[in-house]
């Protein structure tokens, strides 16, 4: 690894067990009420959730359960009506350099090549203290994009575009990764493939991750825990543990535990 602005993996493994178990991300009694067009709509009601350092947690639920709203609040892009969110003990009030965001759409700039899309966060933040090219090469290797550096977004498939977006997220080594249905617009085969890749990358990078999806299978495959959310008002119904060994490989999907957790979540959501 190169000299990065933040180093997490080593601190984590070397740390004391209490430090390891201390929550890294704390969502403390957060509510959000919308005014204006959706006057009085309670998008989120008293959501509380602790996420440990290096933990992968998914937010699953039907449309309107407030999962994207919660993600935006954690990202510092939206303020809660009540309650607060803390990351590494400091209250989130605005976007931060140690938090990275990824969307359902690749959101690449068409006029920049893949590699220049990836370096965008470094350029915007004028990052210093490490060699950009080395770090870019590292994330390209990690995501399997070598050889596509000079391609423009329109020359890449949907799956490849999302890989570029993933590289752009990873390049500045965020301590908290927020992913909003990143594979939601892809076909089933590509989605499954990228899930396997993300599981591998996430185990390698050991970052705290919040992953929004309405695909139960995807949530179980990737997560340590799944927060199951409900509507009217948007809230967390239950947080389910996923007792499946890592590394997560495709065969996980046919395991007995996988089926058990799936049924458990479907029960909570009232899907039978």
């Amino acid at each position, binding site marked *: 690894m190169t000299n990065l602005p933040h180093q997490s993996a080593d601190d984590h493994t070397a740390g004391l067990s209490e430090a390891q178990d201390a929550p890294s991300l704390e969502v403390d009694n957060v509510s959000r009420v919308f005014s204006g067009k959706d006057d009085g709509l309670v998008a989120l009601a008293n959501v509380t959730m602790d996420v440990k350092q290096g933990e992968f947690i998914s937010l699953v639920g039907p449309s309107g359960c407030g999962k994207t709203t919660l993600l935006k609040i954690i*990202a*510092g*892009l939206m303020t809660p009506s009540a309650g607060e969110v803390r990351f590494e003990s400091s209250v989130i009030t*605005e*976007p*931060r*350099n140690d*938090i*990275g*965001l990824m*969307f359902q*759409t690749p*959101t690449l*700039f*068409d*006029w920049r090549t893949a590699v220049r899309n990836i370096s*965008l*966060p470094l*350029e*915007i*933040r004028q990052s210093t203290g490490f060699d950009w090219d080395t770090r870019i090469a590292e994330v390209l290797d990690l995501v399997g994009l070598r050889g596509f550096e000079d391609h*423009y*977004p*329109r020359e890449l498939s949907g799956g490849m575009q999302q890989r570029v977006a993933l590289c752009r997220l990873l390049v500045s080594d965020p301590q908290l990764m927020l992913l909003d249905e990143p594979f939601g617009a892809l076909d089933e085969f590509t989605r499954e493939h990228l899930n396997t890749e993300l599981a591998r990358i996430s185990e390698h990078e050991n970052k705290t991750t919040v992953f929004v999806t309405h695909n139960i299978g995807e949530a179980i495959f990737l997560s340590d825990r799944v927060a199951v959310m409900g509507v009217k008002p948007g809230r967390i119904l239950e947080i389910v543990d996923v007792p499946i060994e890592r590394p997560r490989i495709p065969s996980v999907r046919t395991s007995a535990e996988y089926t058990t957790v799936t049924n458990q979540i479907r029960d909570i959501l009232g899907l039978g």
Partner: protein
Amino acid sequence: METITTYTEDELAELARSLGPPQALQKSPILAFFTHTATLTAATVIAMAALWEILSAIDPRFWPEIVLSRPTEIIPAFWMAITTGFVWANFWVTFQEAGIGFIAGAGGGFILGALIAMSPIFRKAFYPVVVLFQSTPRVALAPVFIAWFGFGMTSKIALAVTICFFPVLINTITGLTVIDENSLVLMRSLRASRFQIFKELRLPSAMPAIFAGLKTALTFAVIGAIVGELTAANEGAGHLIETATFQFRMDDVMAYLFMLAIFGLVLFLSADYLERKLIFWHQDTV
């Protein structure tokens, strides 16, 4: 379940060879020539000219030469026009008026458009005024400009500026304002400054719209110059056309119009080429 067979690159290539090229898609070279755009366009032009010529020959009462010359007369007149220094000198005047008008009008449109798009104060102050002026037929200003700036080039440049200012202004405002929501959220999450958002996101996103405005403005600038010359002038392509019309030299009028058409086409194709080079990422450019 059946076993999955994996083909090697060589086996795939062999398979493609054995299947041969897609027969149905192949076209004979002769058919390809006759269905080509250039061939068909040329055929249309020649057919129209021939019909025109025949109608003039059959019934001169309905196609009097004093009103409309025949193609066989226009072609020599055209040749005469493009080999005469005097004609070129007049076209050069029009070219300068349109060119200066375009640069000033489009430049001004872009700058004011960017200010309106980026500053709420500017927007409130200028946008209603812009809409008011935009809905005024601006060629009606031609006599006013003649009165203000005289018979020379200045009045024509002023008209060209006024006409080509608005398409660039409006398209700049639209282009800079209508931005992909997620891209803006991304830039905000990266804590980009207003200037960074403008330079890295808004301006490149707006380029296709701005360029569309510039292309319209280019045509408008020529219209402005010509209309100005038709109103009152002692030089320029518009002046040539007007003089020739009054003298019933219809073959010359048609030759000048033809020259203007070619002039316009060259400008349009240059702009199109430049657009493809500059906005290489945008696919919808036609």
